[in-house]
């Protein structure tokens, strides 16, 4: 379920993203870099996502655009989990 996945992503953003906005209510398509996500915080988010979803982001997916929104991360996770 994409919405359940997106809520898990929001929880991880709340714990690791250090956003300037409330991560738990941030829109799926909101620009996270505009919301304060730094390159370093995005590493923490990535590692937390890998733990939560039992995945590993390959190097070719380590793009700024993959972590720019909840929807973009959700799509990448879907790609890695086949769902």
């Amino acid at each position, binding site marked *: 379920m994409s919405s359940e996945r997106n809520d898990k992503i929001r929880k991880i953003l709340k714990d690791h993203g250090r956003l300037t906005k409330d991560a738990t209510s941030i829109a799926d398509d909101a620009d996270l870099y505009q919301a304060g996500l730094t*390159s*370093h*915080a995005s*590493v*923490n988010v990535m*590692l937390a996502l*890998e733990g939560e979803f039992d995945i590993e982001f390959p*190097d*070719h*997916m*380590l*793009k*700024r*655009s993959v972590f720019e929104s909840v929807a973009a991360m959700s799509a990448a996770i879907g790609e890695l989990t086949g769902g």
Partner: protein
Amino acid sequence: MSGLRVGVDLVQTSRIAESIATFGDKFVKRVFTDDEIAYASSAPELAAMRFAARFAAKEAAKKALGVADAGIGWRDIEVRRAPSGAVELALHGPAAQVDTDGLAVSLSHEGDYATAVVVTYVRGTSA
């Protein structure tokens, strides 16, 4: 787009220490090469600062090379340190594909912050 490029990044050392405390080796080994880890860890009290400066250098290099969206792992941009203390960047994998006249890096730190500046001249048009 060819031309002279510069990239800069600023990293809070205590945040890097937090990442290491939270994720341990998963963080360190994902971001840093074996040689970078060996150098940073050789002085435990300076490790977080050294890791922070190196992380800043990797991000600054991505900005200078224009590869933030190219899908490049952090270990493909490596900070090497000469015995004299001079630092230089070594690029591996896809990061090494950018056609440049070389890169220059400078690291600095003060208090809880580390920063890096990378300058390069990109020759190719594909980057």
